[in-house]
């Protein structure tokens, strides 16, 4: 089965069983997801970036490890040297060497430079995943970030989970 994706839902089930925990209730949304075609050329689009890898900027309060539903505004003009990464649930080695692996800001700046997109929105939004309450994410965190993105006037958003 080596060419198959790692089944994280199945492995979490195994790990929780091994630890004697009840099974984790993964989010499952049946049916067709909402779908809005991109109404303009990417070259003309303002693009947003949202990442859950625990990225913050030097000077900001870092995330904590207990259902942290806060988020950070990071100007898309930020220097990469000011970016920091914290998270309990993945190996941070690569992200701390090059934040673009979980927060492709420089890559998207390059895309704008190459005219593959119109421009970036004014801010990227970051939070730290591993929030056990999917209800809090759905009812509190996601709508708060969505409001900001609408105010930023972005046409499309790249979501980067870890």
């Amino acid at each position, binding site marked *: 089965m*080596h060419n198959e994706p790692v089944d994280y839902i199945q492995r979490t089930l195994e790990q929780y069983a091994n*630890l004697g925990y009840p099974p984790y209730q993964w989010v499952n949304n049946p049916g067709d997801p909402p779908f809005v075609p991109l109404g303009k050329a990417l070259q003309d689009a303002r693009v947003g970036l949202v990442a859950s890898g625990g990225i913050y900027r030097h*000077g*900001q309060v870092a995330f904590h490890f207990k259902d942290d539903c806060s988020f950070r505004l990071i100007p898309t003009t930020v220097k990469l040297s000011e970016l*920091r990464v*914290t998270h309990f649930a993945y190996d941070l080695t690569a992200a701390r060497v090059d934040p673009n*692996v979980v927060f492709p800001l420089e890559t998207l700046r390059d895309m704008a430079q190459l005219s593959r997109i119109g421009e970036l929105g004014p801010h990227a939004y970051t939070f730290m995943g591993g929030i056990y309450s999917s209800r809090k994410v759905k009812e509190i965190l996601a709508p*708060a970030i969505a409001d900001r993105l609408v105010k930023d006037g972005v046409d499309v958003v790249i979501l980067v989970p870890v």
Partner: protein
Amino acid sequence: MSSAYSITRSVNVPRAVYLDFPLGHTAGKPGDKALQRKVMIDTLSALDTIQVPGTIRSLPYRWAATEDWKDQVMRPNSEKTEHADARVERTTDPQYHLEDDVRAAELNLARNGCADCIWPE
């Protein structure tokens, strides 16, 4: 963008690209700007071309010559489970990356409550 196919399938997002890399590399490998750009170009292309809601498009890049890395991921009793172990201590203390981030954040909090840190209710 996703490196966890089953989770993205279950969440059922409008459209996605799947990169079959270990978690922590959703957008590519560190320092490999060429690969990061290719992944992003494919991601943008998916936005333009995916027509069917819920489509997850697999990207053609491989993490390594073999798929052996997959054997160790989250396997109980393996040595590499420390980051994924549910027993990691959970507190509400901020977990800073670098030591001097602490002082900078304190100054920022004192100055304006960290205006770009948002705690939604």
